[in-house]
């Protein structure tokens, strides 16, 4: 088992490295260059050259990759090309915001999804099951931004219950943050709960066909107990992986929701930086996103390994 976990960790590292190559390579290949992108049509050959030299764009990419990687490994992500700010400093508050939003949404969504999934499995084919299935199918099928706008329309514009803007600042206290992020959190919860709930239900139901579940019924156990104690532990692996996938989505995929609610998260920063060709920021964001995604997947795999007695306790 230790071998398996170690192998998974090594694979995680390799993936991370591949991601770094991809991100650096990808951003280096972006057409156009930063200097012209910044100056747009107030560029003159002189101030262009000046800016280019200032940005260090005249050196070979491989050298810059090496430097970048070593510095990134030491926690130094460089300085933003367009406003000379330290990238770490620039990213830190954004990352905090993103993590807060993702964490807040996950805190609600994960227990809710698993609970609903188990209930739907217990009451399979009941009215509850059908309704919840249809509702989740609906929330999956409607684009998330529309969910966001509809929430704004009713909860912010029509009934004035929650703000339409989630413009938190570093000094906003926790209560204020929760109030401001209420609508984006609800949007995210609606989207991810559906996936996780459906997966929980499907995994549990597929386990429900196993002989040992029949055995559990024949032992005289009640359905809730069979589902929760006997089916759920065996359905953990797919559930963990879908939870991880959705957590990753909460970190990586919230660009759209951030845009709708003007939430100062990492995604917005990255989109901004891409359009401004601010390479260090794009690279840093990409690295963080990829890192979060890879780490979550890795944790999920390791948890799946640990949750499986066959792997945890070999013969």
């Amino acid at each position, binding site marked *: 088992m230790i071998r398996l976990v170690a192998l998974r960790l090594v694979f995680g590292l390799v993936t991370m490295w591949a991601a770094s190559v991809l991100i650096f390579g990808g951003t280096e290949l*972006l*057409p*156009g*260059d930063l200097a*012209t*992108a*910044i*100056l*747009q*049509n*107030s*560029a*003159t*050959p*002189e*101030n262009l050259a*000046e*800016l280019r030299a*200032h940005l260090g764009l005249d050196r070979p990419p491989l050298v810059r990759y090496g430097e970048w990687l070593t510095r990134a490994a030491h926690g130094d992500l460089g300085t*933003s090309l*367009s*406003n*000379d*700010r330290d990238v770490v400093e*620039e990213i830190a*508050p954004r990352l905090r915001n993103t993590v807060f939003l993702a964490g807040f949404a996950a805190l609600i969504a994960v227990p809710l999804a698993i609970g609903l999934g188990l209930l739907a499995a217990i009451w399979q084919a009941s009215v509850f099951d059908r309704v919840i299935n249809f509702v989740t199918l609906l929330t999956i099928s409607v684009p998330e931004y529309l969910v966001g*706008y509809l929430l*704004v*329309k009713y909860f*912010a*514009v029509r009934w*004035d219950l929650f*703000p*339409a*803007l989630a*413009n938190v*600042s*570093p*000094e906003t206290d926790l209560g204020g943050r929760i109030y401001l992020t209420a609508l984006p959190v609800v949007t995210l919860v609606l989207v991810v709960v559906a996936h996780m709930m459906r997966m929980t239900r499907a995994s549990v139901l597929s386990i429900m066909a196993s002989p040992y579940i029949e055995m559990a019924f024949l032992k005289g156990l009640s359905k809730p107990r069979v589902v929760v104690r006997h089916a759920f532990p065996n359905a953990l692996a797919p559930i963990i992986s879908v939870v991880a996938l959705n957590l990753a989505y909460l970190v990586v995929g919230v660009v759209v929701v951030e*845009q*709708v*609610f*003007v939430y*100062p998260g990492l995604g*917005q*920063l990255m989109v*901004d*930086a891409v*359009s*401004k*060709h*601010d390479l260090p*920021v794009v690279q840093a964001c990409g690295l963080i996103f990829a890192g979060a995604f890879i780490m979550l997947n890795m944790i999920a795999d390791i948890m799946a390994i640990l949750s499986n007695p066959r792997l945890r306790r070999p013969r």
Partner: protein
Amino acid sequence: MSEIEFLKNLHNAGRINRREFLGRAAAAGAGAAVLNTLVLGADAYAAETPRKGGLLRLGVGGGSTTDSLDPASWNDTVPTASGNAFYDPLIDVSPENKPLPGLAVSWEAKPGATEWVFNLRRGVTFHNGKTFSADDAIYSINMHRGKTKSGAAGSFSAITDVKKLSDTQIIITLKSADAEFPMVLTDYHCRMVPAGTTDFSKAIGTGCFTLESFDPGVRIKGRHFVNSWRTDRGFVDAFDMTVINDSSARMNALISGQVDIVNRVDPKIANLIKAKKNLELVQGRGGWHAVVSLMQDKGSMFENKDLRLAMKYGIDRTQVVKTLFGGFGTVGNDTPIPRSDPYYNPNIAQASFDADKAKFHLKKSGFAGGLTMQASEAAFNGAVDMATLMQASLTKVGLKIDVKKEPADGFWSNVWLKGACVTSYWAGRSTATQMLDVGYGPTAPWNESHYRNPKFGQLLDSARAELDEPKRKAILFEAQALMSDDVASLVPAFRDTVDAHNDKVGGHTPHALSDLDSSNITSKAWLKA
């Protein structure tokens, strides 16, 4: 007409409110276009006494995480609108595009207009307590000269020397004569900072507000500066500017009451916003215009003037204004000078879609092939739509044209100035001369169409040197007529700036230069009780 005049007077006298005025003016037969001008004027007349105090909340589009408080780096609305709260210019611009005293109280050209003397305001203190003097002014001007990444570097390269005459007087020497030089100094990058400033993160200026917090691309807050020299501006206690680039989010914030003022109301929904009873639009007639370049190098197909004329008459300008700008704009006449500009030549016959003329010129040109129009959303929102609209009308007159959509990334470096027929835009320049020069001067680097008419260049030179205003006007009229006739490039339409605010806001007036009262909104708006 007299009916409308009468209504206007009633309105100005405070006898009828604006809504009533509009309603009755419309009933009196004023068309939409007339009505808009009336509103512009009417609002200016609607004098109300500004009230002090309160927190002004703004939702502003046009910001980015790469924004900074260094004036030289400004490139969009958020940095300028927030920056103008902290810094003052040497010379301000009036809503009608005329120079106004800022930190310079008066100025005067030496004969020949190559040397200008500026008298500086006394008793002005910076946020850090330092007194504003000639050294600060010189440092602030020099920030944009020589080795700099400033966006004003181009126009400031005309300056050869800046000298201090006394603590309150400086003299600026120019390469060549420029009768409108004070307008150059109104460039939005040119803001007065304490001499020697290299760290701009504290935003030390002389403006009505001091910096409270600055989160680039997210939020900027300012607090009223107690020692501000201005008495005519700076009414609110504090402002809170949230960067909202997404237009729906911006509108939602306004409609739900989370912000008081927004800019860049999408013309496509402006009429719907206007219909909301607690919201008002502020429409600015500025110099922003769309352009289609027609590269006129030797050997290029647009060297053929008849082909250019075929294009001129083959595009439907009113359709561009109507569908692309939702009516919030005016048709262009292939010159970059807007109607709001004092030097606008109203005597040139307005070009409009004319299938016969277009076909005539097309036939005369002998051009039988097809051509490609390159467009990108990077230029402006709707550039591809505009190209598509033109394609439709040009096809009607028999000119085969393909629209090639260019990726947003790299548009400015790879397509603009390089393609033969490219859609792009120009933001208005502070003076007509500058605008004509920068875009169409025979040696101008950004002359997209490579329009090299020596006579046009001579006209510009003489206008620049001409201190006598009527004469200068006449010269510029001629230049405009010349380029329009030559079809230097296609200028299909000017777009208005459209801001909106809720009924708590007063003092929000349109400006010919740019949106949010030329970015001075924080110091000019006030909150009603």
